[in-house]
């Protein structure tokens, strides 16, 4: 199951500067593990010591925040789009 993953600037040093990569897996968790295999060093930037998503990292699956889905266990299909975005807060 191949998906596209958008990589934010702070993580591009692990992808040789590339802003979109492909990865495989049937859940967000599996995709992140595959990313770590392809681009070593990424995992610890995204997950804390307990394997949970870091507080300031947002992951979107086809535009939806995975916290509204099934968190890291959210199911992923072939061709899905995943975005990794640093948390930002603005006023409106």
């Amino acid at each position, binding site marked *: 199951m191949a998906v596209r993953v*958008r990589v*934010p*600037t*702070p993580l591009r*040093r692990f992808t040789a500067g590339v*802003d979109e990569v492909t990865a495989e897996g049937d859940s967000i968790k599996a995709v992140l593990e595959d990313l770590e295999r392809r681009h070593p060093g990424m995992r610890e*930037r*995204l997950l804390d010591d307990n394997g949970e998503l*870091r*507080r*300031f*990292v*947002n992951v*979107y699956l086809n*535009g939806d*925040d995975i*916290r*509204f889905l099934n968190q890291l266990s959210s199911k992923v299909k072939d061709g899905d789009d995943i*975005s990794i*975005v*640093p*948390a*930002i*807060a*603005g*006023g*409106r």
Partner: protein
Amino acid sequence: MSYVTNLKCRECGQEYPISPLHVCETCFGPLEVGYDYAKIRAAISRATIERRAHNLWRYRELLPVEGEPEIGPFSGFTPLLRAERLGAELGIKKLYIKDDTVNHPTLSYKDRVVSVAISKAREFGFTTVSCASTGNLATAVAAHAARAGLNCVIFMPEGVETGKIVGSTIYGARVITIRGNYDDVNRLCSEIADKYGWAFVNINLRPYYTEGAKTFGFEVAEQLGWRTPDHIVLPTAGGTILPKVAKGFKELKEVGLLRDSEFKIHCAQAAGAAPVIHALHKGTDLITPVKPDTIAKSIAIGNPADGFYVLRAVRESGGWGDVATDPEIIEAIKLLACTEGIFAEPAGGTTLAVTMKLIAQKRIKPDESVVVSITGNGYKTVEAVAQSIEQPFVIEARLREFDALYERLGGTRRALAGAA
């Protein structure tokens, strides 16, 4: 010269040079501006500040800009009113309203943060400034960018009211609407900032932008005669202003302008967008995002990245917080207008309604001083209250018709009493 030292990650402490950077490359934590407080302490005094112009730059040593500030020459230093009629209503002797409904030039607290962000955008050499916003932030960015001679692009969710688009395009800003909700727009902007190198005031300039919010607290302390209030109540959306007001009070003590800095800081959220209050009441640090549903659009953020820092500032100070429902928000807007002559946007109604709850819960006591923070103007959000107030009486232009109405309303006292 400025007293800024570096950018520092609030989570892991990693340091970075002053640059348009907002996220730590190691842990994704937010970056914050660092200062040389010892040097500031030697350079600043109450008398120096009091001699300066009435704008937010009177605290320039504690703001991250280089050189003479040029943006927002009339922004900040808004009134702190002693609210005696409202205070009598609430049973509080020392009640104050910090009134950013009259901030220049766009009538909200955003004129503070945007003045700092746009100053920094110019320093960094950006020619285009931008933001995701449907209201106060968009208006402030568009207006300040116009005066600074910068290009401005505003991103909004599709379907926002015409008035909100006019509020930006009138200043020459280009508005792009996105098919999606506000959080979708914010996420896209983060990706655009990354790719196109534009200055998004609340994304890549965020460390500087948020520093501007401290001036709200600096002014409250100065206007109270260089002391902090016992209580200050602030609205929370993305989580910028509350922690920065707390930081501002602490900095004033650090640089010798306040003898002590004891205060309780309280958080107000609309019931339909209250992820921070849910976490506060549950006693956890974990903020679960929500889908916002409230008339208080200016604070309808379901996923506040700085919510964690709001929790920390509230808990450190011994403060608390609560939510206000849409009807409670409207009643509070009316009460503030009818007692003090200030027309607040729904965020202000939220803050007052929550203050009233904190008083009822005896967390705020009658003899303690309280500052209610009103951060935006009700003239921009008339539709939020339009259906909840008395409608006008209509008569022909004949005295006899007025006589009849006067009788019907029960004579002078009732005729003048209005709907209040």
